[in-house]
């Protein structure tokens, strides 16, 4: 067997001879391999894996949701700063030219590449902003102890769908590569937006590692309460 033994499972045998032993409400299926498990509470700080494929299913941290909210709020403000302030300045032999984050997007505003300008604007600014807004909207009722509704569950679903498409961290690596390319030929100075964007990327990384999707979904679920 190749299952991981060091962590507790939420799974036990849930069916014998095709006959379910537990009511539907107490079952959860692994999103990766469809294996049924019994839903049990996992001690704080522990991680539960799928018994068959080993996918992490539950990671509980009691402080996680409050931290996710504060990180998302901070990142949201940083993103606003990152698009408002100057990003980078370049000078070669007395001539200077600066760009903002949106200036980088507008590099593709020629006729043939205009759709790419919209796509890049989405990848690095608007989809990350929308995703942060959706996370804030989804976890706000959990932190303020109000009853979450359909709207909040849709918001978290949207945040999950947008995850692969918000590429702020990839943009910052791209910027580093570009800077190395011109570093020998020109002088570069960093604007406040550059630091805001870098900080934002680090915070987003922490936020994505903190968040336990399964716990958020359970907390947002009011149907069984």
């Amino acid at each position: 067997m190749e299952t991981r033994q060091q962590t507790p499972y939420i799974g036990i045998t849930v069916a014998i001879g095709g006959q379910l032993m537990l009511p539907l409400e107490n079952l959860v299926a692994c999103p990766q391999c469809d294996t049924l498990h019994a839903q049990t509470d996992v001690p704080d700080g522990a991680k539960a894996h799928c018994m068959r494929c080993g996918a992490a299913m539950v990671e509980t941290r009691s402080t996680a949701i409050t931290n996710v909210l504060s990180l998302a709020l901070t990142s949201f403000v940083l993103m606003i700063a990152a698009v408002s302030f100057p990003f980078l300045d370049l000078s070669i032999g007395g001539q200077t030219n600066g760009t903002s984050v949106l200036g980088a997007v507008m590099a593709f505003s020629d006729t043939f590449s205009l759709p790419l300008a919209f796509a890049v604007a989405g990848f690095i600014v608007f989809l990350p902003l929308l995703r942060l807004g959706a996370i804030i909207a989804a976890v706000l009722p959990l932190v303020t102890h109000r009853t979450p509704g359909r709207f909040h569950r849709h918001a978290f679903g949207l945040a999950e769908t947008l995850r692969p498409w918000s590429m702020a961290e990839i943009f910052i690596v791209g910027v580093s590569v570009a800077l190395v390319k011109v570093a020998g030929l020109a002088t570069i100075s960093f604007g406040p937006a550059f630091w805001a964007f870098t900080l934002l990327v680090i915070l987003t990384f922490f936020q994505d590692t903190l968040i336990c999707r399964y716990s958020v979904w359970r907390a947002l679920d009011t149907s069984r309460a």
Partner: protein
Amino acid sequence: MAGAGHIAGLTTAREAGLIACHRCGQVHDQQATECRRCHATLHSRKPDSLQKVWAWWLAGVITFIPANIYPMLITNTLVENSESTIIGGVVELIHYGSYGIAFIVFVASIIIPLGKFFAIAYLAISVQRRSNLNQHQRNHLFHVVEFIGRWSMIDVFVVAILSALVQLDTVASINPGIAAVNFALSVVFTMLSAQSFDPRLIWDADRAAAND
């Protein structure tokens, strides 16, 4: 003959006649169409998964060809006008002695896209035929592909920043070439191809084999 992932006593939602939400794991009976927890549309398996995988895959491969033939960057300076392709850009970086950055660009723009094409094709074929890799390895491969695919976008962002920054009309200017559009499309198509793949198919194929 049981595969490595086949453990006695484990039942899938499908075998039990249930539908599990692919997003939050909530289990429903077969009549349900919308997840009552997260409101996602319910499917026991993603509908027409392999067809969509192959369609996006083909679109990704086709757009990857012009992305490598046409120029990615058009550089105009006082002394010369030059156009560089993706590979040309990597060669240029090696000339400057920036081996580390050349390596990053080469891996992100060439190795990852090509690797993804092979990996997705292999996964799609392996769920229809027997595979030499066990399902744990293939499951792992799928997650690597899903995680790493977006990073190919690096080169598009490099072009964006360079073109925005280097606009000194008399001394030097850099503009994006048509390949940037093709390359971005190829990355997006390949991401959609990977997202259309249903990892549960890897385990289904094994169970079918184990029950033979």
